[in-house]
């Protein structure tokens, strides 16, 4: 690949030249395939997704493959992360008794999503995989199938519908309206918001970092260097902020997944 292909913009383009600002946009999130295998286009985000798996497994392998009663450093960090999701999210939301079964799922989800987000600020990768809707959508779909399935398994067909639609006789005349709202809210909007919340945060964050990075480069000409400095400070600020948002969004994604499962298992929600 030549330089102009990998950078996706003209490196000679600066302010005070007859060249406009190469603003980032939707195209920032599109990648040429690295390789094409039998018509299947393998792209950088896919590679990063698989590397995320490798990173998560690699870390937990180092931490938990041969766990010791008196933990080493890596095991201690692993235990802290494991305990954070287990006690901090699953036990808190679903409860210890019902939740224990879903701990592995939630731990996997949290660290997988977090690492996929984290690529955003890692040199060379510099792309949050979750800023492509397909990745959060896949995970949200999985959680959706799980909680809907659990609802019907736990409450039976009629009971499951009652649970999902918030059936409550005391509501009287407005019950049909509530049921309609609940239907849309729980079955249609919920999986959408679950995926989009993560996607949109990562999408916007990445866009901002790319925008300030491009601007820093673009402004490096004559008087523009002053503005470039300000823009570069923004890159640093946004990078630090993203580091925070990445963890928060992974946390929120798992928190919501837990609360959906809790709703499926409880009598009323």
């Amino acid at each position, binding site marked *: 690949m030549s330089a*102009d*292909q990998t950078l*996706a*913009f*003209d490196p000679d383009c600066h302010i005070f030249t007859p*060249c*406009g*600002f*190469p603003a980032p*946009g*939707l*195209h920032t*999130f*599109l*990648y*040429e395939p690295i390789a094409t295998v039998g018509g*299947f*286009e393998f*792209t950088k*985000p*896919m590679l990063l*997704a*698989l590397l*995320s*798996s490798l990173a*998560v*497994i690699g870390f*937990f*392998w180092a*931490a*938990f*493959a041969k*766990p*010791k*009663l008196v933990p080493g450093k890596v*095991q201690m960090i*692993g*235990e802290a992360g*494991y305990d954070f999701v287990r006690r901090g999210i699953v036990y808190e939301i679903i409860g210890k008794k019902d939740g224990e079964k879903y*701990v*592995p*799922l939630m*731990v*996997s*989800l949290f*660290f*997988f999503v977090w690492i996929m987000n984290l690529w955003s600020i890692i040199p060379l990768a510099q792309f949050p*995989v979750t800023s*492509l*809707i*397909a*990745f959060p*959508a*896949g*995970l949200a*779909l*999985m959680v959706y199938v799980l909680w809907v399935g659990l609802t019907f398994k736990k409450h039976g067909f009629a009971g499951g519908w009652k649970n999902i639609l918030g059936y409550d006789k005391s509501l009287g005349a407005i019950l049909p309206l509530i049921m309609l709202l609940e239907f849309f809210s729980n079955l249609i909007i919920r999986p959408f918001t679950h995926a*989009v919340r993560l*996607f949109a945060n990562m*999408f916007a964050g990445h866009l901002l970092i790319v925008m300030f990075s491009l601007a820093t480069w673009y402004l490096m000409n004559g008087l523009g260097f002053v503005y470039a400095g300000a823009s570069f400070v923004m890159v640093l600020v946004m990078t630090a902020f993203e580091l925070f948002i990445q963890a928060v969004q992974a946390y929120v994604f798992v928190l919501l997944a837990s609360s959906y499962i809790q709703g499926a298992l409880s009598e009323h929600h």
Partner: protein
Amino acid sequence: MNALFLAAAEEPQNPLLPHLDELVIGLIAFAIVFGFLAKKLLPNINKVLDERREAIEGGIEKAESAQIEAQSVLEQYKAQLAEARHEAARLRQEAQEQGAAIIAEMKAEGQRQREEIVAAGHAQIEADRKAAAAALRQDVGKLATDLAGKLVGESLEDVARQSRTIDRFLDELEEKAEAAR
């Protein structure tokens, strides 16, 4: 701003429409993570966490039992010590009493012996005095009779009269001695 964007050739589509291939790859990547964590790594650590909790609880139990044992041993020692003190006090008391009794006995015995000796001494003196008095009476009577016989020139043969006279004389002497006392 022309045409150096990588993706410019492709028409950017709605970002909310997921690509099926990415979705599949994402789910596969997650399935790999979930498989490793759920089947191997998390059970591993759960086992160790349980073992650790048991070890800690066991340690606490051991410490508790040791403490209880130490407490009971301490109480036992205290009880033994108190008993020993009591015994010592009792023995001392007994010894004191015995000592006092022995001293009292010895005193009584000494007193008794002293009195016996004194009494024996008195009796002996009395007997000696009587013997001396008897002997003296005889000797004095004889001497006086001899003397008187020589003086008056007559033989006082009548023993009974002699004896009566001497006795009267001696009695007078004794009365005089009594009166002089």
